[in-house]
């Protein structure tokens, strides 16, 4: 009853094309933002930050990135883990080469470097599509991991072959390194996550977004209406990789603190992000959040219920997770390719009509 668009008219085109044209949605968005910025930092603790909030925010950025490429532009990628590694290693190089640079700049520059690398590995998309492109991006994944393992310059010749995030501050507060408090890391990631979502939303509702979707839906028709397919695809690779690179930089510098590339950014990471996008919803920014939240919370929830409450052995619980995620992927791919975001839309449509469904 309370979810209504009646009496909620858009009288101008800008009003109609805003992100949340329905007032109720807009207010809920403001409330969530206010809660995330003003309340959570005061109640956060290390467990919540490390188990849920940081991975959620960081994966959401990666999922937004992949969603732009795959969900909006229709180009499959299995190289997300490799591109996150590019973000992580370039962030590390900037942090160590320019110790005085603000951490904000480091992360942004990591995004820019990853965007350039993404364009490079996006070049095959001009010739090949679908399955073959997926294989090409898979090659990028393995190549990048191999590169960061093999060339010592990338890990500053450290004996362990790992990269470690030194302490860097923002306004005098440590956001990386061992002295970082949970709220500082959280806020830093939150700023990037919210900014990424807003930018992604703006790009996808404007002319560049329509070019991407046109390429996705029918590339021949897109070209006939004046879309340069090469430019559209390569911008999608650039923007997508920019977000994925930021995500990789945050994952390394704020979440893990120390990274061994084969472990942190393996092919499994590529699949994890892809699953987030599929379960959350292809072609939806909200879906990227929903998918990230789901796959971050699911293992934690299963561990709590399975191991802590029911007393099952932890390895069984871990296997159960794989089974559940696998089953969900199949269910979503077959029954609801637009993911949780679409379920949410349908629920809202029902709610809007309730209690008079006709």
């Amino acid at each position, binding site marked *: 009853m309370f979810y209504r668009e009646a009496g909620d008219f858009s009288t101008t085109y800008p009003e109609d094309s805003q992100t949340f044209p329905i007032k109720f949605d807009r207010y809920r968005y403001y409330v969530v933002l206010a809660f995330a910025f003003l309340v959570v930092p005061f109640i956060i603790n290390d467990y919540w930050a490390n188990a849920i909030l940081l991975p959620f925010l960081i994966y959401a950025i990666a999922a937004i990135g992949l969603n732009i490429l795959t969900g909006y532009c229709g180009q499959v990628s299995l190289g997300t883990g490799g591109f996150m590694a590019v973000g992580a290693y370039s962030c590390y190089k900037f942090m160590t080469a320019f110790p005085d640079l603000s951490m904000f700049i480091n992360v942004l520059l990591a995004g820019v470097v990853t965007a350039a690398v993404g364009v490079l590995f996006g070049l095959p998309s001009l010739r090949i599509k679908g399955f073959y492109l997926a294989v090409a991006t898979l090659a990028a994944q393995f190549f990048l991991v191999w590169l960061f393992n093999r060339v010592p310059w990338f890990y500053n010749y450290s004996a362990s072959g790992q990269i470690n995030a030194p302490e860097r501050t923002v306004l005098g507060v440590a956001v990386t390194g061992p002295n970082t408090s949970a709220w500082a890391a959280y806020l830093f990631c939150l700023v990037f996550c919210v900014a990424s979502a807003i930018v992604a939303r703006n790009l996808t509702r404007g002319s560049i977004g*329509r070019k991407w979707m046109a390429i996705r839906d029918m590339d021949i028709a897109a070209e006939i*209406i*004046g879309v340069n397919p090469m430019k559209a695809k390569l911008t999608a690779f650039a923007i997508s990789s920019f977000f994925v690179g930021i995500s990789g930089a945050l994952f390394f510098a704020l979440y893990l603190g120390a990274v061994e590339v084969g472990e942190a950014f393996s092919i499994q990471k590529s699949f994890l992000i892809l699953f987030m996008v599929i379960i959350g919803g292809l072609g939806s920014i909200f879906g990227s959040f929903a998918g990230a939240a789901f796959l971050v919370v699911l293992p934690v929830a299963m561990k709590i219920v399975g191991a802590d409450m029911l007393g099952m052995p932890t390895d069984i619980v871990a296997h159960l997770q794989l089974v559940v995620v696998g089953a969900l992927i199949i269910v979503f791919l077959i029954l609801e390719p637009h993911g949780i975001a679409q379920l949410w839309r349908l629920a809202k449509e029902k709610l809007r009509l309730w209690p008079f469904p006709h």
Partner: protein
Amino acid sequence: MDEGYTTTDGRKIGGVVMEMKNITLRFGGVVAIKDISFDIREGEIRAIIGPNGAGKSSMLNVMSGFYVPQEGEVWFHGKPRPQMKPYQVAQQGIARTFQNIALFEGMSVLDNVMTGRLTQMKSGLFAQAIWKGKAEAEETENREFAEKIIDFLEIQAIRKTPVARLPYGLKKRVELARALAAEPKLLLLDEPMAGMNVEEKEDMSRFILDVNDEFGTTIALIEHDMGVVMDLSDRVVVMDYGQKIGDGTPDDIRNNQAVIDAYLGVSHD
């Protein structure tokens, strides 16, 4: 060069917009178009007719830069058009529809029509990312234009509907809307009325005449249905087996013996 003519209903037709000069197009051994020449004049409704497989769609594909002919030249605005990609042809002001609808199924009607405006939208990536200044102004401006087309084609009620949910006849109309949104100088329509019922055909004919009348758009259209073509067009090219067998006003065509033998005889069964 002469400067056009006046139609029977009193419309002024201008100079040559596009001229096909000795076009030959082959697919391997198949000769789809054999040494065909004709022109299209400003403000004109020009029809290409002919039986199935005559090479009409192939001709339209040459005009829109989709196929490159082995021989011959396409002249546009008095100059030979260099070989270019289809998107560059679109940027020159040529829009088209397809025989088999080619809409963006995953997008709403409004977004589909807005894609027609893409050639007019120039704001940079950064402006779009922050959705301020030029990006926002440009979106509103082009939305207004798209809405004008939507009103014109009477599809207001479905503007937020995903295209995949629309029936065939409406899809054809949305595809026309998308082409019109580009404000084309030359509009190419490949069988705009194929597969429609009588009422839908009448609507579509009316829209085509209105487009020509209100926007002054030059139109080249392919049609299978002789009756429709004769009512609609100013001049007609008749194709058969890749060759041009007639070219003139609908009256000329009706009295052309080669055309009667090849085509009219078949369809007036």
